[in-house]
């Protein structure tokens, strides 16, 4: 997590605002519920960080085993902790 502070700014890809908004709305039980634009923006940021964090930890795991390719085992290894950290 130490590299978290400077790393995300290097990644230019982000989730589309409209897509996240659509997803959140589709999961709401009542269709009346609304979501503010600022809140969507923050959820987009969390989603991006979640993806980067998972990828970075899996990469770290692969590096520990001196592998060049990150495979399923590496991801499975770090998945529980990532999910707890972002619960």
């Amino acid at each position, binding site marked *: 997590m130490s590299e978290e502070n400077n*790393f995300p700014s290097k990644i230019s890809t*982000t989730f589309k605002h409209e897509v996240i908004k659509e997803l959140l709305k589709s*999961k709401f039980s009542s269709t009346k519920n609304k979501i503010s634009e600022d809140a969507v923006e923050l959820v987009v940021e969390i989603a991006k960080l979640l*993806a980067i964090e998972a*990828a970075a930890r*899996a990469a770290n795991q692969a590096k520990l085993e001196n592998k060049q390719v990150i495979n399923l085992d590496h991801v499975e290894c770090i998945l529980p902790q990532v999910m707890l*950290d*972002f619960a």
Partner: protein
Amino acid sequence: MTTEQKVRQVILNTTKTICNETAENLALKFDPDALDLIAEMVYRQMGIYAEDLEAFQKHAKRTQVTTDDVKLLVRRNASLKKHINAKAQFIMENKPVEVSNANKRKRKATTSTS
């Protein structure tokens, strides 16, 4: 394809792009299976967030999800909380021009009457 399937597909693809970009930065490569797993995890997690946000909003007796609900969502992870708070502040500072004008007018009005 229904809208929900489209949304799911877009989120999976975006996650994979982000992961690939991250791996590129670290001079590594991703296995397709590994990418699928991370993408699915992000999608499911977003679903859980949606349910939580709705519950928070309901508990606060509002009908709109606000930034406060999102802040509550990340309260457990200290570094994430810090990052989100900073981002929220950044959004707030770059936005409400009208509100600050209204406040100024109000203040002027109150000072003139007193």
